[in-house]
């Protein structure tokens, strides 16, 4: 990194901010901004789904995720490996990249890959997405899910690439029913916990990659995956 890249180019920060303060009539000489007055105390009018039992949320999530074009397979911890292996075989997947937190879930995935005779693609040392391009599928776990919109939430990190869900033509996500939040409004508290700062990339996925730019006709798989499969692990 050269020096100039870290230097603020353009207008000096103080001049820029002073113009904003002047526009807001903060007085002369320009005083520091007052603390923002609190916003409307409740965002609840925008809530569409209230907290409910895990089973009910799982049913709602499955319905909504299917409505946006994702494919749901309901399973359990005991059946996970077999179901995943069956899915890999059914989809004809011969190689897969993975982004998984080490643990029982990751172990189940690796067992399934072996059972389905599917080659795991090793991660290179360099920070690049390149190894995802030849993969038939990308397999990830999830940080959370949202029942109301049928979305899954992923985070980047030491075990999670930004490419696994994006580059291969098929994305397979593993999700526990207990991870499902009722509403998008419930996501913020899980993101902004002071003890764990936001990762560089947090992603809410709601369906396969889509476009309707040509005459409004919906086509999937324009840049990202054309299919998103979710293995939903019920309690």
């Amino acid at each position, binding site marked *: 990194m050269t020096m100039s890249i870290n230097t603020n*180019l353009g207008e000096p*920060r103080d001049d820029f901010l002073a113009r904003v303060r002047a526009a807001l009539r903060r007085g002369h000489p320009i005083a520091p901004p007052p603390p923002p007055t609190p916003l409307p105390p409740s965002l609840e009018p925008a809530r569409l789904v209230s907290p409910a039992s895990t089973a009910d949320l799982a049913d709602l999530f499955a319905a909504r995720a299917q409505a946006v074009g994702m494919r749901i397979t309901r399973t359990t911890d005991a059946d996970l490996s077999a179901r995943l292996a069956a899915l890999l075989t059914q989809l004809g997947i011969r190689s897969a990249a993975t982004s998984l937190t080490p643990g029982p879930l990751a172990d189940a995935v690796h067992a399934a890959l072996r059972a389905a005779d599917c080659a795991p693609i090793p991660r290179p040392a360099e920070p690049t997405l390149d190894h995802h391009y030849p993969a038939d599928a990308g397999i990830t776990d999830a940080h959370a899910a949202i029942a109301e919109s049928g979305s899954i939430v992923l985070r980047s990190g030491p075990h999670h690439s930004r490419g696994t869900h994006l580059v291969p033509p098929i994305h397979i996500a593993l999700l526990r029913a207990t991870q499902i939040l009722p509403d998008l409004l419930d996501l913020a508290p899980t993101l902004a916990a002071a003890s764990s700062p936001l990762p560089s*990339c947090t992603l809410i996925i709601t369906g396969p990659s889509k*476009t309707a*730019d040509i005459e409004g006709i919906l086509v999937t798989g324009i*840049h990202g995956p054309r299919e998103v499969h979710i293995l939903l692990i019920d309690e």
Partner: protein
Amino acid sequence: MAPPTPEPAAPSPEHPLDPPLPYTIAARARRAAADLQLQQFVNTATRNKDRARAAAFMAAFGPRLDEVRSLAARIRQHTLDHLDAYLEQFVENATKTGAVVHFARDAAQANAIALAIARDAGAKLCIKAKSMVTEEIRLLPALEAAGVTTVETDLGEFILQLDGDAPSHIVTPMIHKDRTAVARAFVRELGAPYTEDPAHLTLIARAHLRSLYRKADLGITGGNFLIASTGSLVVCTNEGNADFCMSGPRTHIAIVGIEKLIPAPEHLGVLLKVLARSSTAQPLTVYTTIITGPRSTGFQPVPSSSLPSSQPPPHTPDQDQDGPAHLHIILLDNGRTKLLADGADGGAREILRCIRCGACLNACPVYRKVGGGHAYGAVYSGPIGAILTPSLKGLRNYPDLPHASSLCGGCSEACPVRIDIPRHLVRLRREMAASGLTGVRRRIAMRLWAAILQRPAFYRLAAAAQRSLLRAAAEPGVPPAGPCTDHRWLTDLPAPLDGWTAARDFPTPPSSSFRDWWRTRRFEEERP
């Protein structure tokens, strides 16, 4: 299979969104109104989207619909009313995450910053997501001129770039083109076999763009929101193209208008809910990406010299596998503080609430009739463009836009952040009159009109004179179907009134006025 229609004429040297100023709408609007195919594309697309939006809002929020719009409006207005505080907070927090924040007073500065970063990164190939702000500052030609090959990756923008064309809608940029235009562009520019199947065309684009994603060394995006409390950038797409731009290349530049701030992540939920439903009737866009800093190395970033040393060391997220090494966020003013300064009730500050969903475009009968965005002669089109463009670039330069509306109110009904667009249109018209920008003829006519309306005797006299004069000049008309309905028709008025009769007949007043009829009627009723 041969293309069914001939190749389009070479694009005119005048850029559709950057015409010579002052801009007058008439020529483009007339051309568009006569283009039946264009009328049909825009009509179908906007009507379908408008219907789907209304249905999606009703299905999700039902009777709370207006309450939710008010909540979104309050969040946006609150942020604008305290934009100085939130900007400072954003800059501080974004810097802590390792992002470099730059400040651009105008388009030229923003382009200069982006070019300097590109040069510094040694960038040769830039992949770019769709962004209205980059259109506003005309970044792409600047990058190309500096030798950085830049590829639009949103499918619609990619096709427009191949065709040397410009977007005509904030959300669906290719609303004015059909599949045959895409097919021809792919044959001509990519050497692809001719096909009109949208799925096949999409695959051709996918393969072509993927080959570029792997080579690109610079990614450029706009931003849908900036979160003050976390220093994050939020980018929404359905295609996932922005995620390639933000994750693959070593350097990511985001250029964002200062009005895009929101206070904290919890407010994001409310705004995302209304944004996707307003744009495309989806519960959420397919990819809603929250970027907080560049790829984390697991070490805390070098504290910026602008931060007081008393601050606690910043949190550092765990080391990332990939992502850009450098994240630059360019905050753009470019006239926005001018709007911000007008904080009165109904003042221009309210316009900055806009989240660029495009709902007002789809709801607007004028946008439809003028064949979409190009008639507005600027990047921001439709009802929001009709108030934003003259406010940013001067009423003098865009004197027609505040009049490019029937004030039907469809736009403000559709707006998820309740911008009262008709009220702003009327305000701008008033400002034009007050600053002498209204034409002499119109001014005299309006004065005369006001003088007559204020005096009942004048009004009666003028109405009677108008009635007999017009009826004398007209073709014999329809027999009366009821009181006051025996209109005649004028088919060929002299200039300047021929603007009306060129396309339709003008009905004269009936032989007796409403006032005459009312007098008779009252008289009849009073009889026993």
